[in-house]
């Protein structure tokens, strides 16, 4: 286990190094950060002075070394756009995004798995067919449209839910703010979370259904039935449990992408999370924020992958973590 963990850690460092190099190179071509700091109308004298101050006038390799050295010291620099330390800017946005992603994924799991099981067990039922049709809509509906639809119904027409923002937040400790402890915060998270979950519900449901149908055809399920075990136990304990490994993998990856790329949903609801930050940072060529953001997202994916590996073992006792650095 320790060997496995340390190997994983080594891989993580490699991934992060590659990502930071990519981040640096990519964002050099995004545009000139001087625009964000000085605005569209500035004089040549101001620009030269600023570039000199920021060390942007040196040769590129030197700039990269500078960038890596300060990153290794945990110094991601200052946001060009906001004038604040990048780490704090990110730390302020992470709770909003995490809560949104987790609530959205929870909704998706609570609806997606039962719906998948149901449609697999009764493939020809009317309800199953309706659910399948609805899931097709869910998969194909763009999330900005879904968001606007919800806003139109629940904010403009009914006036029940706020159309933007996070509501009132409560500070937990020094780093985390949560909207889940206030009524306005709960109201505010509902529509964005549903918007995020719609696609996930449809996907999880279809995945569970397909896996389940396959599992139901396997010999051990048939034998279990033949032995006279009650249908509920067979369906849930034997069939469903065997479908979960791929579901966990996909859910893990999807969770990573919701955290990293909920750009559209966050923009529609002015949700003060990472997605909104990303979009605004791209427009301003705010390179320090963008690089740190990429590194953070890489970290999220690596962590989630690691956790899903551990989850496999819990779900399926036949899987063992080998010391060769993977699953055997």
């Amino acid at each position, binding site marked *: 286990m320790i060997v496995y963990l340390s190997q994983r850690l080594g891989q993580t460092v490699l991934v992060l190094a590659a990502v930071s190099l990519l981040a640096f190179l990519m964002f050099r071509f995004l*545009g000139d950060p001087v625009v964000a700091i000085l605005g*569209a109308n500035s004089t040549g004298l101001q620009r030269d002075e600023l570039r000199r101050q920021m060390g942007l006038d040196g040769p590129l390799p030197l700039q990269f070394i500078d960038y890596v050295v300060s990153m290794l010291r945990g110094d991601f620099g200052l946001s060009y756009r906001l004038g604040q330390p990048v780490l704090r800017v990110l730390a302020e946005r992470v709770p909003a995004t995490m809560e949104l992603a987790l609530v959205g994924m929870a909704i998706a799991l609570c609806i997606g798995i039962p719906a998948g099981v149901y449609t697999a067990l009764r493939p020809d039922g009317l309800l199953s067919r309706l659910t399948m049709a609805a899931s097709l809509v869910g998969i194909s509906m763009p999330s900005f449209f879904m968001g*606007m639809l919800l806003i139109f119904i629940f904010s403009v027409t009914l006036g029940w839910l706020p159309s933007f923002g996070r509501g009132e937040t409560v500070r937990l400790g020094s780093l985390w703010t949560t909207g889940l402890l206030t009524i306005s915060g709960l109201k505010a998270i509902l529509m964005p979370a549903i918007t995020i979950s719609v696609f996930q519900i449809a996907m999880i449901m279809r995945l569970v259904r397909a896996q389940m149908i396959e599992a139901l055809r396997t010999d051990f399920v048939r034998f279990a039935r033949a032995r006279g075990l009650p249908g509920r136990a067979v369906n849930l304990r034997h069939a469903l449990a065997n479908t979960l490994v791929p579901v966990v993998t996909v859910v893990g990856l999807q969770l990573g992408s919701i955290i990293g790329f909920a750009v559209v949903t966050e923009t*529609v609801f002015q949700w003060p999370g990472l997605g909104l930050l990303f979009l605004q940072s791209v427009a301003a060529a705010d390179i320090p924020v963008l690089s740190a953001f990429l590194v953070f997202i890489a970290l999220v994916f690596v962590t989630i992958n690691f956790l899903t590996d551990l989850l496999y073992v819990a779900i399926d006792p036949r899987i063992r973590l080998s010391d060769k650095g993977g699953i055997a």
Partner: protein
Amino acid sequence: MLKPTWRGLAGIILSTGLLVSSGPAWTKTLRIGAQADAGTMDPQAQNIQTTITLLSMIYEPLITRDKALNKAPALAESWTQTNPTTWRFKLRPGVKFHDGSALSSADVAFTILRAQGATSQFASYVAGLTVTPVDDLTFDIVSPRPDQLLPDKLLYVPIMSKLWSEKNNALTPQNLKDKQESYTALNANGTGPYRLASRAPDSKTVLQRVPQYWGPLDGDITEVVWTPIASDPTRVAALLSGELDIVIDVPAQDVARLQQNADLKIAKVDEFRTIFFGFDLKSDKLKYADTDRNPFKDVRVRQAINLAVDRDAVVRTVMRGLASPTTQILAPGNVGYDPALDRTVTTNRERARQLLAEAGYPNGFGFTFDCPNDRYVNDEQVCKTMATMMSQIGLKPTLNAMPRARYFPKIWDRDTSMYMMGFNSPYFDGMYSLETMLMTRDDKKGEGIYNYSNVADPALDKEIAAARDEMDPRKREAMMKALYKKITDDVFFVSLYNQVLVYAMRKNVSTPVRPDNWLEIRWVTMN
């Protein structure tokens, strides 16, 4: 695990308790929705109207404008020109910053010095000025050369507290050299009617009424909540659902719909922002073109493009009626504006083709023109239409649209053959455009700093400088009108339209709309 949660719960209980005990007897909150947030709370770090507007609720300049848009006293009670380069100011006595310290001449001297710093976006407004305090409330401002617009420029320089800035190490607008966080990015200390109560960038900024404010307010708003909402439909939905009281940048496509809503009203004004195209007027061989010459140096080619543009069609279709066609680069309401120049040509493609042939391009020529795609209202769409209209007279334009972070550096380097620009004069005066866009480039003197066409004409420089330095306002205006006629007739720029500014608000809110898109909080009333 449990502990922080309990602390959080305790926090809620505590905060509701505080609200009951220490809140004012009544609150009247104005909730403002805008497309973008103010980028900073530093009054000198960002020359963007959104930031200027929000900060003008907290900070105040020496001079402001009244409702007729004439200059009016703010922190300065009076100012007189004692000789061509010296102005004497008298500060209003008894004015206090939000932290309780008194306003004095030293604060003004400090502010102007700070505004001249490298990371200040207002450096060109105060270039070369020196402030000499005479006593606590009197000071002289000396400019390097006679400048009739000096008071107008000071409108954009809100006064900061010297002590407060020194105490918080906020001596420059942004300190990127030392990679040091700017205290002023999140904190403010002005003399204005509202003080900064809380700020969460990109989500919410709350301002609270200062009871002892020295000046008059039209309304009795006790709290201002500034909410940036980037997504157009959401911003409009939030106004419709009653979550906002006023939206200061209404998307063109929603204006008609909002007008029909009984709970809302719409206010419009012609904005000080003219959208036009400029050309490389210097190179002998056009850089991004398939010709060995520079066709744009020939006035007939520029005239041809001017004739090719169907401004009414652009305004009607792309801008949905929210623009006023024009053929000059100066908007109405500015000193030097001549309405006769708004309609100098009408679309005439045949004549345009004829002019191209006379200039030696009967089959047109191919070239690339640059446009931003996230800077002006519908910029990319306007440029696409522009490309179509130019190809209708036989030219072969290629559109190169890009984000502003790439666009402006390209234009700054004068690395363009034809470019789009939206420009306004911050001083309600046409001299700014002439001096910065048409004089030969001299960054040190602040001349031609936005001369992206590379115009270099000593005779023109002389004429502009003469108008600039003319002390008689009437003569000066006549000289400027003559200059605008000349550059319009010679088609230095192909202008399209002035943008129209639209505010939408709930029925109980009223405010005048200024053509420079400056929401003046002192004029807003709420019933």
